[in-house]
């Protein structure tokens, strides 16, 4: 056991820190100002430019091989980079659906042509991806997908409807599952497609979320023609291909621990400040603050633990479900506690009419137990796969 980062990792951290401190838009002093909200057209484009700037300096996808814009570093270096990224409160990654959800699948199942075609524009932010998993009648029950792809000539013709496509309002491409064999049962007969959202027949309907902004969208497909080159993995085997991606989503990459340790550190700061003005309120909430702080740290260490196992040749299995449960609950606990610390000010929006950082974070955290597989589904998975309890 060795819990120190080695010299090279420390140098990598310093290099990342120096670059981020100089370039990252952030609410912190000494940085370029923060970007407008990701969920507006203007903010989306500003975030896209930031992805481009990161790509220029090769910080966009540090763990990818150099030909695709990365630095070919390992899992721990990626975690170190994330820690630095959140430390300076750099912008939310508008490219995260592509980079963290699709890219691992592309690396595993993509042809060389596909990798060459999609990875660089993804890393640079030129092409932003949204996901197309859910449908109106296929939420928790993802295998109930009804959107179809039919063979016509040498191409595929897509029809149907996807929903809750995060980033869908302004994204360029969508990845998702479509039913290619209507006779097959549920998980079978699905195929994984890559679809440009400017294709004829695609209609994007932005959906406003709790804060009134359009963080996701419905996407309608009417006879959208897609060539074979945009099928990822084997035809009819999309479920297995997709599961690799949802594995990464719920596993190590989507919600890096740095996000929670950073939020927990801010919570402790807020607590210290409020202790001066309202000592008894702060004493009362000390337990909840420390709880949130411990959970954030537990998540970080658990990730290191899992990362070590992966580097030693192990697999990430149902842990991804445990991770998802834990970070979503931790995120809610951090933000609920912060709002309690704010007391009567918790309900106020900012002078700009938008939720302040804690209320905004709370609204965001509320979605955590729902997306990427509801927490109810995840608890089933943990009970069945880890504890061996029988399926209902």
């Amino acid at each position: 056991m060795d819990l120190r980062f080695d010299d090279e990792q420390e140098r990598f951290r310093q290099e990342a820190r120096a670059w981020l401190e100089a370039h990252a838009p952030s609410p912190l002093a000494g940085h370029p100002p923060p970007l407008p909200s990701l969920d507006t057209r203007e903010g989306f484009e500003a975030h896209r430019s930031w992805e481009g700037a990161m790509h220029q300096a090769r910080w966009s996808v540090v763990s990818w091989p150099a030909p695709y814009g990365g630095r070919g570093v390992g899992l721990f270096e990626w975690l170190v980079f994330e820690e630095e990224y959140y430390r300076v409160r750099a912008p939310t990654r508008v490219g995260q659906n592509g980079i963290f959800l699709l890219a691992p699948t592309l690396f595993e199942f993509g042809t060389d042509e596909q990798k060459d075609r999609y990875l660089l524009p993804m890393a640079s932010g030129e092409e932003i991806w949204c996901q197309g998993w859910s449908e109106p009648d296929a939420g928790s029950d993802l295998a109930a997908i009804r959107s179809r792809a039919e063979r016509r000539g040498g191409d595929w013709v897509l029809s149907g409807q996807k929903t809750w496509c995060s980033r869908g309002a302004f994204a360029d491409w969508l990845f998702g599952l479509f039913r290619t064999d209507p006779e097959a049962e549920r998980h079978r007969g699905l195929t994984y497609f890559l679809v440009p959202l400017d294709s004829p027949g695609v209609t994007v309907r932005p959906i406003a979320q709790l804060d009134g902004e359009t963080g996701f969208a419905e996407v309608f497909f009417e006879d959208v023609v897609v060539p074979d080159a945009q099928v990822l993995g084997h035809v009819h085997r999309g479920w297995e291909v997709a599961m690799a991606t949802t594995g990464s989503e719920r596993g190590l990459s989507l919600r890096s621990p740095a996000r929670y340790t950073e939020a927990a550190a801010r919570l402790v700061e807020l607590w210290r400040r409020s202790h001066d003005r309202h000592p008894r309120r702060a004493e009362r909430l000390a337990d909840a603050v420390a709880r949130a702080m411990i959970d954030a740290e537990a998540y970080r260490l658990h990730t290191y633990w899992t990362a070590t196992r992966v580097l030693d040749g192990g697999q990430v299995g149902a842990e991804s479900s445990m991770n998802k449960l834990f970070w979503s609950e931790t995120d809610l606990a951090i933000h609920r506690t912060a709002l309690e610390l704010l007391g009567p000010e918790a309900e106020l929006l900012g002078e700009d009419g938008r939720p302040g950082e804690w209320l905004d974070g709370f609204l965001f955290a509320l979605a955590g137990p729902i997306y990427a597989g509801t927490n109810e589904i995840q608890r089933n998975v943990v009970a069945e796969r880890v504890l061996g309890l029988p399926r209902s």
Partner: protein
Amino acid sequence: MHFAFDEQQLEFRSQLRSWAEAHCTPADLRAAWESRHGWSPDRWKMLGELGVLGVTVPADHGGLGLGLVDLALLLEEAGRSGLPEPLLENTAVAAPLLSQLPGRFGAEVRDRWLPAVARGEASVGVPVPGLSGLVLAGSDLALVFRGGALYAVETDEPSTGRRRTIDGARRLVEVDAAQLSSANRLCGPEKSTPLRRAAADRGAWAAAAVLVGAADRMITSAADYARQRVQFARPIGSFQAVKHHLAGALLRVEFARPLVYRAAWSLDEADPEAPGHVSMAKAAASDAASLAASTALQVHGAIGYTWEHDLHLWMKRAWSLASAWGDAGWHRARLLGVTDW
């Protein structure tokens, strides 16, 4: 001992419910949120005509001269329908406060404004504890405690410090200190302190009543949704996880309710224990509504997270009122005497 509402009280609730089903639909709420103050002076007038705004106004000022027990089910109904108008502030806080204003100037203010409130022709703003100087947007008169004194400030549109809250119907404006003067000063610390405390207790109680109604609505809506939404070829309401979430949330609402009703009785009776009873009610109702909100959201899933779906109209009211008038933690601390103020 007879812990129940009487026929008249139940009947008044039914009337308000029927009215709200016609005039306070989710579409009406959305329109109100888009409007200047977040609520509608027209609907305010209708509430006056219904008699709702006069419940706590003395008969000699055009009201019904009733108490908070008579108001309880109406406020609960306001929570259930999501009524955006400042009902709790006017009926539970402003009207009793106006009734008690001391002195000649106090009598003038009362005589002018109480009948107007009862008729739905005016709304009187009262400051929310902890957010000093902020009153609801759209108030024609603001009763403001500052520097120990109580002032009555006529101003239908303070220009500075407009603040929105997470509840789209609940907007606050700051009363400009420059508007406070000896001319509109009602009384000094000795008389204003008990008035301020009583106002805070009545506000906390009324918020609790509204919260119980909002919580009830969210649970009912989520149960309706769970009966209809099918996943894995079954209504999701047949899954034990969904059942147990909803049963747990319902439990907190059902046991908060009698605390709210008892606090109304204690306030009406001027029971010396009334502040403690209010704190119990507000703490339980705040928690019940917060739990109902997160449970309803989880049961609805992504659809509940959208602006298009109506759930957020109640969730946001629940979050706002759970924190306003003292949050659950503050009221629990007060019960044991360990608050900061």
